[in-house]
């Protein structure tokens, strides 16, 4: 029996629950299924007694397919995705929207499936399903903005998918294998295509805007779900295919850096969180780029922690959004009075992401920093330290402060419903547990891909972390006091997406317009030419025309004579 279950990918549990949700109209049943499905997935996940499973192996159309590869790299990602599915199911218990239920189950299932994919075909299939399923979490917001953002999101996600497909088939043509293993940029164009595909989902600089564009437009529960899967799936894929690629270090460093500046002035808290995803994923990308065991461990561990604390932050802001109808800094403030528990959990999440000692990011991010320093990338290291201070600014302080404290907006919404609080509470507990110095972080380290002896809780590490955080917080306090911090206001902040939303769109419209005019002109010219030709042909061939006129017999006789002449000449020449 266990052997049988050991072959079944946990993703199927979620797909099954998605199908059940699609047909069951009863809310409670659906929710129960959604909560139980991750548990079932977890049981399946535990079924293999050893790692290194290659299950669901089959051959379709001459291709070797392996849908369930459980090794030390996919293990932590699989686990945290199951966890995230569980938390989000609880968080979304109150949500009566069947479409979102189905979408979230398929989304989580396909993300899980992608992580367990042993070959590129399986990866591609799930890669695309994540896009198709998740976009409904955006559409269901029901606004024009969300619909348009969703379409842009879908186009970009599909682009990622087809680039992956193109790269995969090129690799297939080159190597004869579809197995998803180390790719590397040395594989030429194929490698770059796959890299680009991962990079889009990973939100590399200039490819990142779908994230800030779409996530803030998603539904309340959708935002939470979206934050958990897509980017981390991409990190996994990068770690699998491009570990140790030098260029990733720089890409990651830039990713940690630039979102900070945008997050400072951004008004929409969910967009701030989106930038924060960018920034956190940057750390992981650096870790993957460095590629040492410690760095990869750090990247994986940070991804693990990030899923949870980012979900926690999205949950708390989602609760605010649900209760107040807005997530805008300029319209919020002082909510702790009516939503103290949400505020509390938000602070836990904020402190976690800021890597406060005893909270999860502290034990994970430090691994990446240590690995970077170990490899001597001191500029990168400085950037990451700077980014850590930046994280504190936008995620650690701005989020809880501006929503729950700060200037009192006078809003007194009710506290979040119980299921949301429960989900937040569980996530907060996990944030603490993962960094618990006596058994917590050790457990986390044990499930990482490599065995390394790393201890985050050295006294000087704790001290320097406090120095950094308090130094930064002091800057916050002082800038507030002297009123030098810019205030957020209801606005649109331009980012790289301006290039396609404004410039590209405008250029498209212009080109379309010009092409339309050109075609109209050419059509006119063609019609004119056609008419002229028609007239000419008519003049020549119609009954009254030059050629077709009934010739007088005399003319005909001349023709006869001419032909006779020709025939005679030919005969003469031939002889």
């Amino acid at each position, binding site marked *: 029996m266990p052997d049988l279950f050991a072959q079944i990918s946990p993703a199927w549990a979620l797909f099954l629950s998605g199908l059940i949700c699609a047909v069951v109209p009863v809310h409670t049943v659906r929710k129960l299924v959604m909560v139980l499905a991750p548990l079932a997935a977890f049981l399946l996940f535990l079924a293999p007694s050893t790692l290194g499973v290659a299950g669901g192996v089959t051959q379709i159309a001459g291709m070797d397919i392996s849908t369930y590869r459980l090794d030390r790299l996919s293990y932590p990602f699989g686990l945290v995705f199951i966890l995230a599915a569980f938390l989000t199911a609880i968080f979304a218990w109150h949500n009566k929207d069947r479409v979102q239920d189905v979408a979230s189950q398929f989304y989580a299932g396909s993300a899980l499936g992608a992580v367990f994919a042993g070959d590129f075909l399986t990866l591609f299939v799930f890669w695309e399903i994540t896009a198709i399923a998740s976009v409904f979490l955006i559409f269901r917001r029901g606004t024009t903005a969300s619909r348009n953002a969703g379409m842009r999101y879908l186009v970009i996600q599909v682009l990622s998918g087809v680039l992956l497909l193109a790269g995969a088939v090129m690799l297939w043509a080159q190597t004869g294998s579809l197995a998803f293993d180390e790719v590397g940029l040395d594989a030429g164009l194929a490698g770059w295509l796959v890299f680009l595909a991962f990079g889009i989902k990973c939100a590399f600089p200039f490819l990142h805007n779908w994230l800030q564009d779409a996530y803030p437009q998603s539904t309340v529960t959708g935002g939470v779900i979206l934050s958990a899967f897509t980017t981390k799936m991409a990190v996994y894929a990068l770690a699998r295919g491009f570990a140790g690629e030098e260029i990733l270090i720089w890409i990651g460093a830039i990713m940690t850096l630039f979102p900070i500046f945008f997050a400072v002035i951004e008004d929409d808290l969910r967009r701030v969180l989106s930038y924060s995803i960018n920034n956190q994923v940057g750390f992981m990308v650096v870790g993957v780029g460095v590629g040492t065991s410690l760095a990869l461990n750090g990247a994986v561990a940070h991804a693990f922690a990030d899923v949870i604390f980012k979900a926690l932050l999205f949950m708390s802001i989602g609760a605010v959004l649900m209760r107040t109808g807005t997530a805008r800094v300029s319209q919020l403030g002082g909510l702790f009075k009516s939503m103290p528990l949400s505020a509390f959990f938000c602070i836990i999440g904020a402190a976690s992401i800021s890597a406060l000692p005893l909270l999860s990011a502290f034990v994970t991010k430090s691994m990446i920093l240590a690995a970077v320093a170990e490899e001597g990338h001191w500029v990168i290291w400085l950037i990451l330290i700077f980014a850590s201070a930046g994280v504190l600014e936008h995620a650690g302080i701005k989020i809880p402060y501006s929503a729950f404290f700060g200037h009192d907006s006078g809003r007194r919404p009710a506290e979040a419903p119980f299921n949301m609080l429960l989900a937040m509470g569980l996530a907060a507990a996990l944030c603490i547990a993962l960094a618990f110095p006596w058994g917590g972080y050790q457990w986390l380290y044990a499930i990482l891909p490599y065995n390394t002896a790393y201890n985050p809780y050295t006294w000087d590490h704790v001290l320097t972390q406090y120095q950094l955080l*308090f130094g930064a917080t002091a800057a916050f306090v002082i800038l507030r006091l002297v009123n030098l911090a810019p205030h957020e206001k209801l606005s*649109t902040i331009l980012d790289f997406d301006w290039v396609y939303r404004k410039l590209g769109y405008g250029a498209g419209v212009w080109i379309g317009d010009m092409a339309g005019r050109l075609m109209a002109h050419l059509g006119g010219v063609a019609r004119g030419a056609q008419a002229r030709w028609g007239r000419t042909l008519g003049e020549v061939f119609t009954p009254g025309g030059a050629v077709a006129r009934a010739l007088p017999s005399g003319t005909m006789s001349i023709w006869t004579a001419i032909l006779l002449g020709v025939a005679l000449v030919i005969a003469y020449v031939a002889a």
Partner: protein
Amino acid sequence: MTDKTPRPAPENGIHPLARPFLWLDKSFARDVISLCIVLIAMILLAVDFFVHRHGETAIAERPGFFAIFGFISFAFAVLMGWPLRALLMRGPDYYGESEDSDA
């Protein structure tokens, strides 16, 4: 779509659990907290000059590096907001997609 619309909380909207913390709203309390934070930061900075700690990079071993670098980084990030705002901030309806209307 089925996310509920805001509804008023009971008792003037103050949550019972928040009652013990309402002092946080007082500006005096905020000033005290602010001062405490600055004080702690300075103490932590001071500590650095008295202990010898191990650093990951050469620059990290300089006394006070983390506190000062943290302060400067944070201040830089925030202050950069001014030019960025001037450069990139547009009206809320810049892209012509108003967020809350459904058309």
